[in-house]
Every structure is written in structure tokens, then in C-alpha cells.
């Protein structure tokens, strides 16, 4: 049982921000992370489901995905390019992708998230309720400010995107993945830093010192970056 001391479901953003201004309160997007974690201290959760942030809308030259849009809704939406839709599908199994949200994925800043890497190569920008628009790259570096909320993420959906990855099994979270988009100078890598990062497509390992774990040492992750980056680039050429 998760350690939830109180549950709030605000009806608009200002009420949500007001609730989140109190200590020990955290936003509840889908819940796949916080509700699964039994180790944290008791918190009050602020459920964002009633804020109307679950829409996926196209605008000229950009796609806007609400923070509370689930990964399943990205898969189901005709507006989402097929490659991104497939990345959303691979991000989570059938029983969790209906709960997990785009906003929650961004807030988690998971180093191995291919979806975040894909959003990076699509030059995604994140709109925060208080801080306004920031690039996803900057947000991944700093994290979501305390007492703020992700409203939506906006990106240019054009250009084919391709993933090259290495994992233990076909559906496993990749040890390292490279995501390339046609026309982009940079490639996004997962598994080589504390968050997904943009790297130079020609010299992808410059400045990288991947944290090792039991699935991949630092040296191996660097080698994967060297091998997978040109593969991803080649796939969109």
C-alpha cells in the first residue's frame, strides 16, 4: 500500500498550484511511479486528472500533448507520427501505458526513456504553469521546479525518426538507445547520462561518462553509443 496521507483532486490549475504550494504534497499524474513506491515518506497527493490536460492537439507546425495524456492516448491518436506512437507503445506494457502519462514521463527524467529521447530530437518544449516555456533539454537538466506543474509538451512532429538500441531482450528497456531524426544535427541517447541527452551525431561520446550498472559498464555504454548512433542516423537518411 503506498504511503499516501491525503488525496486531493483539484478542478482547475490554480487550485492545483495552490494545493501544491503546501509542503509534503506531490502531483499525481498516472501513479505508476509514486503509487508503486513503498519506500518514500508519507505524502499528500494532488491528482491532476480533472484539469483537462489530457488533450492531444495539432497546430501549424507543432503537436501539443497535454501532460495528463496517457501513453496509450499517444498510441491511439492519429496526430502522433507512427514512429513516436511506436516508441510510446514500447515505453510501457499494456497494463501500465493506460495509466502512465506524458507529463509523468517528463517529470521522471528517466535516463533510459526512449520516449524522452525522441521528444528531445523533435526539439520539444515544455510549458510549465508558473515558469512558462522551457526546452525539454533544459528541463531534463534541472527537473520540474518545486510547486510548479507541467501543462503540456509541444514539438515539431515532422521528419522520420528512428531508434537503434541494445537490450537484453526485444521488449526490455534498452541499455543504450540512439534516436535520430532526419535533418537534425544531434542525436538523442539514453543510458549514457543521468537523463537522456542530445549528442553530436558525428562524435556522440564527447564528454560522456555513463554511470555503470549491472547491465552495462561505462566502457560498454560508450561503445554502444558509438555503434548505435550511426545506425540510427543511417536509418533516417
Amino acid at each position: 500500500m503506498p504511503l499516501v496521507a491525503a488525496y486531493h483532486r483539484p478542478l482547475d490549475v490554480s487550485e492545483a498550484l495552490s494545493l501544491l504550494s503546501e509542503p509534503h504534497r506531490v502531483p499525481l499524474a498516472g501513479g505508476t511511479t509514486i503509487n508503486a513506491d513503498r519506500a518514500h515518506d508519507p505524502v499528500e497527493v494532488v491528482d491532476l486528472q480533472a484539469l483537462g490536460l489530457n488533450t492531444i492537439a495539432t497546430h501549424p507546425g507543432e503537436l501539443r500533448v497535454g501532460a495528463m495524456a496517457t501513453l496509450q492516448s499517444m498510441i491511439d491518436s492519429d496526430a502522433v507520427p507512427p514512429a513516436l506512437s511506436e516508441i510510446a507503445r514500447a515505453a510501457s506494457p499494456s497494463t501500465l501505458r493506460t495509466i502512465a502519462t506524458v507529463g509523468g514521463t517528463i517529470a521522471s527524467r528517466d535516463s533510459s526513456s526512449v520516449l524522452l529521447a525522441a521528444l528531445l530530437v523533435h526539439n520539444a518544449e515544455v510549458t510549465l504553469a508558473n515558469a512558462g516555456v522551457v526546452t525539454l533539454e533544459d528541463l531534463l537538466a534541472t527537473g520540474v521546479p518545486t510547486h510548479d506543474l507541467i501543462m503540456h509538451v509541444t514539438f515539431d512532429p515532422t521528419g522520420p525518426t528512428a531508434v537503434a538500441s541494445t537490450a537484453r531482450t526485444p521488449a526490455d528497456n534498452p541499455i543504450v538507445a540512439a534516436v535520430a531524426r532526419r535533418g537534425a544535427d544531434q542525436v538523442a541517447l539514453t543510458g549514457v547520462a543521468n537523463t537522456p541527452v542530445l549528442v553530436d551525431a558525428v562524435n556522440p561520446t564527447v564528454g560522456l561518462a555513463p554511470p555503470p550498472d549491472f547491465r552495462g559498464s561505462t566502457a560498454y555504454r560508450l561503445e554502444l553509443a558509438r555503434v548505435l548512433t550511426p545506425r540510427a542516423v543511417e536509418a533516417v537518411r
Partner: protein
Amino acid sequence: MSASSRVEVEIELNGQVIFDHVEPSETLREWLRRQGMFSVKFGSDSGETGAAAVLVDGHLASADVLLAAQASGHAVTTVESLNTEAELHPIQAAFAATGAMQSGYSAGAMILGTLALLKRTPDPTEVEIRDMLSGILDRETAYVKPVEAVKRAAIMMRGGATEPFTPMVLEPMTDGVNSVPHDPTSPIPQASGAVPRLIPSRDVPEMSVVGKPEIKVDAVKLAKGNPAFTDDIELRGMLHAKLLTSPHAHARIVDIDDSAALKVPGVHAVLHHNNVARIKYASGGQSWPNPHPHDQVSFDTKVRHVGDRVAVVAAETVEAAERARDLIKVTYEVLPAVFDEREAMLPGAPVIHDETDTEEIFDRSKNIVHEITASRGDVDAAMASAPHTFEQTFRVHQVQQCPIEPHISIAWLDEDERMVIRTATQVPFHTRRMVAPLLGMDIKDIRVIKPRIGGGFGAKQEMLIEDIVGHLAKATRRPVKLELTREEEFMSSRTRHPQTLTFRTAVDNDGTLIAQDLYLIGNTGPYGTHGYTVQTVTGLRGLTSYNAPNKRFHCDVVYTNIPVPGAYRGYGAPQAEFALEAHLEDVAREMGIDVIEFKRRNWVKVGSEIDIAPHLGERAVVEGELDEYPRVMSSGIEECVAQSLREIEWHRRDDLSWRQPADRPDIRRGLGFAFCMHGTAIPFLDMGGCSIKLNDDGSFNMLVGATDLGTGADTVLGQIAAEVLGVPLEDIKVYSSDTDMTPFDTGAYASSTTYISGTAAMQAAENVRVRLKERAAMLLDIDQPCTIELRDRRAWAPDGRSVSLEEVALDSLHWQDQEQIMGTSSYVSPECPPPFAAQLAEIEVDIKTGQVTVTKLVMAVDCGVAINPVTASGQVEGGMLQALGYAHCEEYAYDDDGRMINSEFGPYWIYRADEMPETVVYLVQTMEDSGPFGAKAVAEIPKDGVAPAVRNAILNATGVAINDLPFTPERVWRALQVAPITDNS
């Protein structure tokens, strides 16, 4: 909504709006079970298992990670919504018909997922079906038959007609004895992967129920999600237990202060070494007397691995128990720890069992708990004179059984103040005997009930937590439940033994084996439990598959500080056969002999002596010779090899254009083979009992001690009895595994149930049949009852007259010379007939990254006569899935202090439905005369061959031999750096 502690919710559950107040922490799974929706199961708090998946607004979603409060305003559907009539819903019926449910623990989630999928996509592709199943982990079916069930359900829901789900019967390719050359032009039989390919034996007569794909006897309750599992019971006043486990790999407990914990409201007991009697035991579920050393106590003054027991709390709520558990203050003296079995024997290694009250440790100063030896002939002399000798060392790793239902036990004192323990166990009778002294109770005052259980695979061949709930029930005089979390299941349950195996082999110039020598270092963790017997089986399997006049086994079983290894399906054989089949592959390559020809020249055949077997095991003949040694009496291996080589297209192994695809320059392909031999039960030791009685309507109640883990044992035993009694399976009502109600059985392990308990069932039914014939002869006025036949629910005289079994029953129970017709029998076997199999693997290797992708697995098994080919093939499919995880991705990862760092399914990783390779199963019939209706074992042999077949396929693909498991990308990549890839042509 307010911020008050309880939350008002309005949830539409199965079409009915429910208003309730919930705790903010309450998950949707907990709330649904509180509403009586027992189909929603616990697998983990993370939602990763999918056992608790339900439909929320029509979408499949894990109810573990949703708060009940989040579901307010939404529509929730559980499988109970389909249970509006006695008949099964078409989706439920499809799952029953295809054998898609083994334990059925996650059946509710799968059925709901199908419901949602078919509503959206009435004719889904296999990719869409597998994607739907991707969130529901299954350790039993390999997803093959669930996929088939969804396809069948789709047809049924669209109003289409379906054929009965039956095996595809194939013509034999061999004469049953001799090999045939592989023919690349022979067409591969085409059928769904879920359909077992059955090659009948001419020696097997036609039967009515045996050999038929009968629907499992427990299918209805599993498909409907009826309350059938340990946790599906509600007892007034039940307390919840929570364990405090060690954060240290090795430490002495200096002090425990439970005063703060006892002050937590709702806490009823805190138990630890200061208030629980110190009674020595060994937790492995084995026959009396349990092998020494008895090196455990319920709560010790020392902890020997991270996750070891320290204390337990019982409280009125889980939260109170957890809060109190966290308030127990323990002072540890942390000691040095050792994790590698090779290092544990070195001078200066910490001594793990320095207590004085554990007896029969072979050399405690070196942490050697057992030394095991056995030999035949003179290995040293043979090695010295042999023209070719080879030596290789292999290291196999630690993995977990991962039953989706974790260990769970509930104990209470009944109205007679006897202890009742309802528990997820494979060994109810052993558990009753073993727990009694720990609780200070007589065996007669304990009743152990095994309801349906959600998989065991050996993890539950253990008296693991039953003593804890028993102690708490005695201390509190309240019912107490303890259910392990997923992390506890990884850290505090049981695992597979890591081992270091060194094979030395001597070979004559013509490829005949002269000598085999196996030195094994087995890592039994901090407790002996199954340490002796598992390593013995490693020796047995390592040295009985092939004929060699000289054999030697030497084993050191070593204590370390890793979480405890125990029984895991295969029981030492997968380790042995990985090393053996890899080693002989390399020997064949060195000798320049075709690997199958080399192995064929040496593998055991009908008539071969299994000569080292009697010298290994709990009742081994340690000294001297036997007058007679057991022999192989049936083997279908040549048919297995022929069928599987055709299926895998073995000729591609030598086709460079296939192995190095021109359009994928970084990919190499390969095929690998492994010969597999297993055992069937433990001779002179495993025993099962059965009792059958006749009812008024001509049906029968069958009581068996055998333990159905989801394997279909109840069904198979029922089929055997039905065949003898001439009735359909539906007339046999099976009740199993209740120590008060059913006869004794050693339990579900050692591939024994069909063979041992099945023979008991057959004999009990034969005893009933004798009396039925005598009573029928009275009614038919016939002098010779033996001339009567039982079939179609009737007793038939030779002249064509008949009486129904109902008439016989009414006459015998109510009318004349009244009696209860019943029969009982038990069986222990002097034989251990080996099943054989050919395991093939097709793989791809990315030579730049080391990533291995397994694309196809084929297993052809000679299990004698498969009593039920659908359940038997399901055993093979599930076994291959687990074996694939062992070979490819699963492993315990630790930090430097012995803490497991991947104790969740995400980082640990078990195979999902949407990534499984193609699997194909062949069942090659042979007539094993010692088995019931010709049956041998099938449950464990699928665990044996996948790892060596994949390893040998990597060798075929790259020319690189890898002798450590698993074949994870970095391990393979590093091997490829050391030994450059050859074209291997």
C-alpha cells in the same frame, strides 16, 4: 474532494455504482478485493505482473498502481462481470478449451484484456494480441496458448464456428530406434504454435480419456475468478503479518528492542529470537528424515544474508504492522561476508555457521557443508591412457522461480483449537510434519490445506513461512496472514543454486567416450535446505546422459551469504546439462566430428545401464557394487531428433549465406542443439496415495495427496481414473492436498506426480473397478465378474446386457448388502524411467553490440504417453520460457555488500508475451511399461536444454564459445572482443 483522511468515492463497478469511503492509501486492487472481486490478484506493488489488471473505462490497467480514490468517477470492470450465468462466457470458454490457464492466477486479467481488445478490434492480429498480453506476466504458458485462446475467442465472439482444440498427429519419421538422415527438402508441418505435434507410438492402444486433450477440471473456477487461492478467504479478526529482515549479509544480532513496536495501536505480537523457541530444522520440503544439517531456527541470533529473518509483527492492519516493524530497534555486529562459492572455501573466509548446535557440517571452518563423491571404473587411469582429453570450467548464476503469486500463508486455530494452515505450498504433508516441532504441537493437531496456487516451480517446495504464521496464530489466538512482497520474494524466498562446474572428458580416436569427470562447487547460500540433493542431481544428470565406462563425481557444497538457493524446477539438471552439452559440443568440434553424430554415438539407449545413479542421492549405495543396475527401458530420442531437426531446418547450420545475411552485415545467425535426459520421480522414496469412492449417481470422488500447482495434475489423475472406470472425466470429482482429508503424498516435485500419484490413482481405480464388476455381476446374474467391461458409464456383460453405474451405486448404497464401494492405493516406484528430448534453438547475434536475439525454440520430448497432450505441451512451453530467461536475461545483481539491486521485475526482467520467440513442441510417444498407461515425466525436462542450445547456436553463429550464463549483451560483446569472430565455415 476534501483533504480529510478518508476519501469519498463513487465507482461504477461492473455496472453498479458504489459509494464508499476509502483510505487515501488504499489501492484499487485492495478496494476491489474488499468488494469480493477475488479475481484481482496480487503479484507486486509495482503493477508489473498485471495479475491485478482490470478495465478502467474500458482500458486494461493495473489496479496495484491506481489508488481507489483515483478510480472515483470511473467505470471499473472485473472478470466477475462475465459470471452472469452458469455457462462460461465465450472468452472464458476459449481460455478453458485451449489450455491457456495453468495455475490461472492471472486468468482474470487476460480474459479482461481480451474483452477490451475484441471490443476495439474484433479480428486482431497476433501482434495486437501479444501487445495486449504484454503487461500480464506469465511464468507458466509461455503465452502460446493464451494467444491461441484470444484468437479462438475472437472467432466465437464474431459468431464463427470453432473446432475442438486437439494435437496435430504426425507420421513417425523413424522406426523408433534408428536415426534417419536429415532431409532438407522434407516439408515442415504447418500449424499454430500452440498446437502440440503428436507422434503416436504403435505400442500404445486407443483409449477413451487418457491421451485426450480434456479440459482441465479446475478450468471453470479459474476462468471465472472464483475464490480458490490462499488469499481468497475472509476470516473474522484476521491479523496481518510483516517481516523485519536483515539489511546485512552477515551479522550477529546484539540486541532487539521491540518496546516501541508493541506500542503501535493494533499490534498484537512481535516475535523474534528472544521469545520464540530455538528449534533446529532444515526448511527443504523433503521426505523424513530431512537431510542434515538442520541449520535453521525460526528466529536466530545471527543473520546470514540480506533478507534473512529478524522479527515479525502481527497487527490489525498492514499499515500498523509495517509501522511497528519499522520501529523495532536492532543492534547488529556486522561481520565479513562472502558470496562466491570458490572464495568461501579459501583460508580466512568468514565462517558462516559457527554456532555449536548445528551438526553434520562437513567442514565448517571452510564453509563446506557437504562433500559428495561417487565413481564408476577408474577415471584417473582412463584419463592417463586416453588419446584425447578435454577440460572446461563453466559458471552458472543465480535466478529466481518468480511465481506470480508470492509465498502466502494463513494460519488459525479452529474450533477444536487445532492449527489450520492454508498455504501456497508444493509439499503440504512435509510442511505439516516439519512445522509441528517448531510450534511445539503434535502432527495430529495440525491441518495443512493447499488451495489453488499461483505457480511454485520449486520455490514452494519449502516450509518457508508456515512456521511464522503458526507462531503468530498461537501467540495471538487470531487468524494471521503473511504474504511476501515481490522484493521479499526475491530476497527472502528461494533461488536456483549458482555453481562452478569443471568437466574433464576422455575420448577414443573414434569418438567414443572413455571417461567423464565432474568437479562441482555448489553454492547453497547460508542454509543447506536443498543443497545436498540439488548438487546430487547435478552429478546425476551430468554423468548419466552418456555412456562411459569410467565416471567420477566430486562435489563441495559450500555456504555463502547470498539469498538462499533451494529447489527450482529442474533441480540441478539445468546447470549440469548446460555445462555437459556445451562441453561435448566443443569436444565434437575439436575432434572434427558432427556434434549430433558424436553425441548419438555416446548417449544412453534402450538397455543402457544408468550405472552411477544408485550411488548418488539420499539413499545412495556408497560402497560396493549392486547386483543389477537400472536400465533405460524406453527412449524416443531418435524420433525427437528427426522431428526437431526438420522443424528447425538444421541444414541452415552449415549455410553461410543464411548465417551471414548479406543485407544485415552486423548480424550472424546460428542453430544449436542439446540432448536432454531427465528423471521421473525419486525411486524408492517418492510415494503418493489415492482414494476413490462411488457416489449415488455413478460418479466418483477422488481424493489425492498430490499437489496441483497449475500443472494440470488434478486433471491428469482424474483422466487416469476415468479411463479405468469407464466414465468421462466429468464424473471424477478431484479433491487434492488437504492433510486432514486426502491420503499422503510426498508433494509436487521431482517430476513425480503423473508417474507416482498417477499409478496410485490407477491402482485405486482398479480396486474400485473390481468391486463394481462384482456388484454388476450380481445385478446381471453373471458368475464371472472378470468378464464384465466398464465403459460409457455402464457395466457390460459379454452378451451385450448392461447396467449403469448409477444402478450399481444405488443398489450398493441403498438396496442390498449395502456397502460403500471405494478403493485406495499408494505407490512407490523402484524405477526412474528417463524422459528424453531434443532441444533446438535458432538465434541471431549482433556482433557489434553482443545482443543475442532468440528467434525460435523447438523441443521434441519423449514423455512416454502424454496423458493429456494439451497440458503436457503447456508444461514444455512454460518450461522453455523459464529456461530461456535463465539462458538469456535473468540474473541476481548485487552491490558490494550483498544487497540485490534488481529485486523488481523491470530490472530483473522475465520474458513478456510481445517478445517471445516462436516455440514449437513435439510430443513423441513411447510406451513406458512401468508408468500409468505408459506415461513418463514431462514437467522438468523442458528446463534442461535451452541454455546449452542457445550457447551452441551462438558458437555456430560466431565461432565464439561462452561458458558463463546468462548471455546478456555485454557478456557476449566481451567474449567477442577476446575471441574474434570467424566465418565458422
